[in-house]
């Protein structure tokens, strides 16, 4: 060895004890502790952000699931509602909402009388402003649905106005009422009186989930029915299109595709599509599906197609991973007994990969469910308050409905938006749970 000269005895060592920490070691350990602390802080920040987000959404949104109602006794006057007296639904529906005004006014007068013991200034007009503008319409719908009520005096519950509802939920106070054109402190006093008389009640509100959207001035009546249906239609379309196409594409790319430049291009394409901003897919939908192919604006079919294209890369990537996880020995075994390659894949590989494929699909669907930006561009922001009857009818989607709510000025819509988010998150949570359970249950170690 040429370097032997270097092996003269080393410089005499300074004997140090292991049991004493050197100055430098202390410093280095302090740096170590700091570094570790930064790491903990980073993790803590992430977790704290999640909690803050959830708490803020929950605290704002949970009140949306309850609603305030005002109880009145109402006499459904036959001479007004069914002049011919034969209870024919067609005749009854000819009576306009407008005609219900005097009936409602009469019932409110009765209520004012009952309340006068509690509060002297109560009049029917004060009460009139406390019920929702939606109340008339709902009363009419109930009468048409059940004509036998006509002529009777029934106990009925009017939806309370958004401000009164806000007062019940602590959002409206006497100070804000002073400044608010839509509610007066007097009405809040009346509301207190009604609580004493058990005429005002806050309870769970199914209508929030089932009712269609309502106009800007009636936050108390706005619901998610149309949005939920729209989202359901779109998820069905995405599932029916993206799953078969995604699986077919994955099978080809993973099992059949020759290694050449075309395959390379497809692969690069897929990984890039997965990272294309979602809004670009919205532009695609607007330009191709609506302007070029002439599909209807705001329709779930267009949304479904756009979301399908967006979800495909996710599904392809996860399907290919699950196909890859099936060991080649399975294919060899099938080929060895004389199956064709196609048979080996469809009879053996695909069933084994199915749980993984389904998991990936559910996660893709969850992504699609929460997607908003592309849907804005294909017209799903439009105000729709008729339930869609097919995938070609206008509808909205759950996340777009949230956006819609936030664009309105009445603060009551913030509560609605947060409530809608809770519904969305519940759906996402369930989908992810299913995915996790599927993965746990069918996970296979080869």
């Amino acid at each position, binding site marked *: 060895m*040429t370097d*032997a*000269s*270097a*092996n003269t*005895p080393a410089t005499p060592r300074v004997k140090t004890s292991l049991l004493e920490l050197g100055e430098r*070691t202390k410093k280095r350990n302090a740096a170590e502790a700091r570094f570790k602390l930064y790491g903990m802080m980073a993790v803590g920040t992430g977790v704290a952000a999640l909690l803050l987000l959830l708490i803020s959404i929950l605290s704002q949104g949970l009140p949306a699931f309850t609603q305030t109602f005002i109880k009145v006794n109402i006499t459904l006057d036959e001479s007004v509602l069914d002049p011919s007296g034969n209870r024919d639904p067609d005749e009854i529906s000819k009576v306009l909402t407008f005609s219900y005004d005097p009936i409602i006014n009469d019932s409110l007068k009765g209520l004012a009388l009952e309340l006068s013991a509690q509060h002297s200034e109560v009049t029917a007009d004060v009460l009139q402003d406390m019920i929702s503008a939606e109340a008339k319409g709902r009363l009419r719908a109930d009468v048409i649905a059940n004509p036998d009520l006509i002529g009777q005096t029934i106990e009925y519950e009017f939806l309370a106005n958004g401000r009164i509802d806000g007062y019940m939920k602590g959002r409206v106070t006497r100070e804000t009422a002073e400044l608010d054109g839509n509610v007066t402190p007097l009405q809040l006093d009346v509301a207190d009186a009604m609580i004493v008389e058990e005429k005002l009640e806050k309870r769970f509100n199914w209508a929030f989930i089932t009712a269609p959207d309502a106009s800007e001035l009636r936050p108390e009546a706005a619901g998610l029915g149309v949005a939920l249906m729209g989202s359901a239609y779109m998820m069905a379309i995405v599932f029916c299109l993206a799953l078969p196409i995604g699986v077919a594409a994955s099978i080809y790319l993973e099992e059949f595709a020759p290694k050449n430049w075309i395959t390379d291009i497809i692969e690069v394409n897929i990984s890039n599509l997965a990272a294309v901003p979602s809004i670009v897919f919205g532009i695609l939908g607007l330009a191709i599906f609506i302007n070029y192919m002439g599909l209807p604006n705001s329709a779930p079919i267009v949304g479904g197609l756009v979301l399908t294209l967006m979800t495909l890369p996710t599904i392809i990537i996860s399907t290919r991973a699950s196909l890859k996880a099936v060991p080649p020995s399975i294919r060899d075994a099938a080929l060895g007994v004389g199956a064709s390659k196609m048979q080996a894949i469809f009879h053996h590989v695909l069933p084994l990969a199915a749980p993984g494929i389904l998991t990936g699909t559910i996660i893709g669907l969850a992504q699609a469910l929460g997607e908003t930006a592309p849907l804005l561009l294909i017209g799903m922001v439009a105000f729709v308050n008729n339930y869609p009857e097919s995938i070609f009818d206008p509808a909205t989607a759950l996340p777009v409905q949230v956006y819609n709510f936030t664009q309105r000025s009445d603060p009551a819509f913030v509560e609605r938006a947060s409530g809608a988010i809770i519904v969305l998150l519940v759906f996402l949570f369930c989908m992810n749970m299913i995915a996790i359970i599927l993965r746990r249950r069918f996970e296979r170690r080869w």
Partner: protein
Amino acid sequence: MNDMRIVERDVETREIKIRGDKVQVFYGDNHAIKDVDIEIQDKTVTAFIGPSGCGKSTFLRCLNRMNDTIEGCRVEGEITLDEEDIYNKQVDPVQLRAKVGMVFQKPNPFPKSIYDNVAYGPRIHGLASNKADLDVIVEKSLRRGAIWDEVKDRLDAPGTGLSGGQQQRLCIARAVATEPEVLLMDEPCSALDPIATAQVEELIDELRTNYSVVIVTHSMQQAARVSQKTAFFHLGNLVEYNETGEIFTNPKDPRTESYITGRIG
């Protein structure tokens, strides 16, 4: 066979550097090392041999507490370095590892220049006060690693660009640069070709003048060539520990004999 060398450079009594006393190692529920008692001498090459999975590498990693980095690993009993318990709560593994350097099975140079690879240890331990000192340390270490002549013109080249044997000698130089008292080597030649192996073995022999060297090897010939003392491990037990010559010519335990003659392993 140059086994005959062993006999020539026998044995003056040397001071004990490392002492293991009833050492037990557990990985979770797996009892990997059972009741090992051993005394390792200074300025000696000690070889650990035994079939794969016998615990020789595990025990080696206990000597500088590299096992601390493995989750679920527990060490019982006592291991002392210069009569100080290295598993004492006050001992900082960082300081321990500065004294007990380690060379691994596969050469693992950092993705840095050759110079920075060697300077890494001195830098973190603050052994050099200025660039000139550091240069001196790097050169001295590379010379001890018997690789200076090959790399002195390209100290800025990446260490990963060297050949396997050069990489391993670089790693030895890197370990030597922190001025350790003990060098642990975990099958340092298993990834090398015969020529590189011969160079590294020669280097190990030279390192003996300054350090206590402990080498794990799966090759009995290598143990015979480079070591003065040999320990034979089997199923987590230290079966036999003796002068290398004794072990190979006159094993006391039938298991040792079976292994040496190739019947187990």
